[in-house]
């Protein structure tokens, strides 16, 4: 059985009573944007980060932020793109299935719609996103095996960010992919009576290449998997694509065409890894403007940790007081507990709450 190659906004007549599956997904609901919206989100994340980091610099040493050249949103994006392209290399090395690769790429893109490169370096995020993707796609490997194959990486590098990544994704782990939709289209095509049989495998392979290229673009944040798949099919063979559209979605084939063309040009223009030299410059500048509060061991980092610990301690003692008071007015542990046992109990409860 295959994922239906349904193009969203198009309910097939048989399932019209029921909402197409994709339209009920978290991806459809929470992870689709207009290109303008994407630009706005990235710009505002960037601006917010710059202002926080500037303040941190100033607090540490007044005047110290004036010479710092912070990254722009476009520069951040370039760096993320570079590490997205590295996911594919790593997956080749581990021989992970395509599902893992595509999912990790989606996680990276989604992560940087909630976070900035100046807080979290894409290299670490990439490693965590990929590890998480092996699990969410049911292709788990042990962390030990994973990190031992990646130079200069230890398990904690991956684990430290796992929660943050999962949180940034809103714990929405399921991703609908264009490569699956493409496969559905291909199966459909093979069952059409007038398909030229000979070159169909080549065409599928070429279309798959375009799907891979599309992963380096924003396409999946803007368009549905089937729209992207159809565009990729169209890049490989316009004839096949229109044949499929004509047979499956005749009434919409025409209205869809401009969208398909837009996706095609997005893929041809942006679907390649960035120039390594230009990214290197950005990465070098990042070292000077990254958020010191996120650099383990720095003065700002320690200050932030200390503040957090103070708050936690305050909460703990407040909690213990509350419980002690509650015990005085109507003892919840019964009379047979000794004073020490009660204190033990309080400690247990407080600690229990503390790791909440």
């Amino acid at each position, binding site marked *: *059985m*295959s*994922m239906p190659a349904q193009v969203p906004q198009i309910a097939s007549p048989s399932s019209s009573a*029921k909402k197409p*599956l994709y339209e*009920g*997904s*978290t991806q459809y609901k929470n992870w689709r944007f207009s290109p303008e919206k994407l630009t706005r989100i990235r710009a505002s*994340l960037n601006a*917010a980060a710059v202002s926080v980091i500037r303040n941190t610099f100033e607090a540490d040493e007044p005047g110290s932020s004036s010479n710092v050249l912070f990254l722009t949103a476009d520069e951040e994006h370039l760096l993320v793109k570079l590490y997205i392209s590295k996911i594919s290399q790593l997956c080749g090395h*581990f*021989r*992970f*299935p395509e*599902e893992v690769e595509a999912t990790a790429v989606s996680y990276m893109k989604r992560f940087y719609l*909630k*976070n900035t490169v100046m*807080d979290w370096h894409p290299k670490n995020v990439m490693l965590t996103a990929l*590890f*998480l993707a092996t*699990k*969410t796609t*049911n*292709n*788990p*490997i*042990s*962390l*030990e095996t994973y990190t031992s194959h990646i130079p200069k990486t230890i*398990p904690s590098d*991956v*684990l430290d960010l*796992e*929660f*943050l990544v*999962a*949180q*940034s994704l*809103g*714990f*929405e*782990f*399921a991703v609908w992919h264009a490569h*699956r939709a493409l496969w559905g289209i291909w199966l459909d095509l093979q069952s059409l009576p007038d398909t030229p049989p000979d070159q169909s495998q080549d065409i599928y392979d070429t279309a798959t290449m375009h799907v891979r290229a599309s992963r380096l673009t924003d396409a999946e944040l803007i368009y549905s998997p089937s729209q992207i798949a159809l565009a990729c099919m169209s890049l490989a063979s316009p004839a096949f694509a229109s044949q499929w559209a004509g047979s499956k979605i005749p009434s919409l084939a025409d209205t869809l065409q401009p969208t398909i063309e837009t996706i095609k040009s997005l893929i041809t223009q942006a679907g390649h890894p960035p120039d390594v030299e230009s990214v290197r410059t950005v990465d070098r500048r990042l070292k000077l403007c990254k958020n010191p509060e996120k650099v383990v061991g720095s003065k700002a980092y320690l200050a932030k940790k200390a503040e957090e610990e103070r708050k936690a301690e305050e909460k703990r003692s407040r909690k213990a007081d509350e*419980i002690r008071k*509650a015990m005085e007015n*109507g003892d*919840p*542990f*019964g009379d*047979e*507990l000794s004073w020490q046992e009660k204190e033990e109990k309080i400690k*247990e*409860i407080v600690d229990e709450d*503390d*790791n*909440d």
Partner: protein
Amino acid sequence: MDAVEKANSERQKKWTKDQKVGEGTYAVVYRGREVSTGRKVAIKKIKVSQFKDGLDMSAIREVKYLRELQHQNVIELLDVFSSKTNLNLVLEFLDTDLEMIIKDRTLVFLPADIKSWMAMTFRGLEYCHRNFILHRDLKPNNLLVASDGQLKLADFGLARDFADPGYKMTCQVITRWYRPPELLFGSRYYSAAVDIWSVGCIFAELMLRTPYLPGESDMDQLKTTFRALGTPTEEEWPGHTKLPDYVPVGQFPKTPLRDLFTAASADTLNLLSKCLVYEPRKRIGAKEALNHPYFFALPNPSHPSKLPKSSNMASTRALEEVDGNVDQNVAGPAVKAAAPNRLKRKLNSPGDELASRSIARRLDFSQPKQP
């Protein structure tokens, strides 16, 4: 604070956590409330730090699937938030489960009641299968029942999607008594039919009020199954002798279901037999089952609110609530024993059910990569 952290802590503040109500293999479950409405919820706190490979696979599966599924007969995941080292799933609170109802000897089931539970089970399952999701752990204890009588598929810790055809999967799934013969024979390419077999076993258990095929080991499970339903022939299940773990376990004759299920209607037995067909490809599908004459014949299924329900449930829970927790409303003496229904469950499970289940999870983890 980062935007992401802030969003998380805001989500966290929407819920309060009260008493502990149970404990599973990888989580502790608390009763809680939605602050704004007072709505009762269950908060499943997953211990993350104990896993050296980070977020646990069961937790990931559960979150992944429940986030996408919305159906009256699938447990609702209301929210997810993390706390320092824990992952918290906020679930709708469900009073009881089908296992407790089946075991409660004070309850009498009418055929209409069984039909109602079966309809709700198939509806939830049809929805999962339509979404290309296999549950892989259906059993009475994972069919939870809400206060209004609605039955909900729960515990998606072993679920996975099956959109990929011919993708090798682990056969170490489904609690033994509900495990179909293709899995017992080690089949690695299976389908939605595995869940249907489990539903068949549950259907039979609702009529018998005791597990239908309670094997004592994997080998004995095959024997128990064949003793009940006859040893499959090559004709009715072509190729089964070629499955990886195939072993001959003896020849047992086919006895009509009627001999055991003396009071059941012909429609009932017809649907039951279609769920328990050996050849997985010939087993009935969830959608087809919902269109089976059984569901259209009289008696009509009972209205969920009229279904039998354990009354001792509340008192069992009340005991657990005090376990290791403060409940300022309870004046009684401290109860330090383990949750009684949790223990009961474990004792009533097949000998190594829990062990084999955690093995299933482990196996999944170390699964060799397919090139």
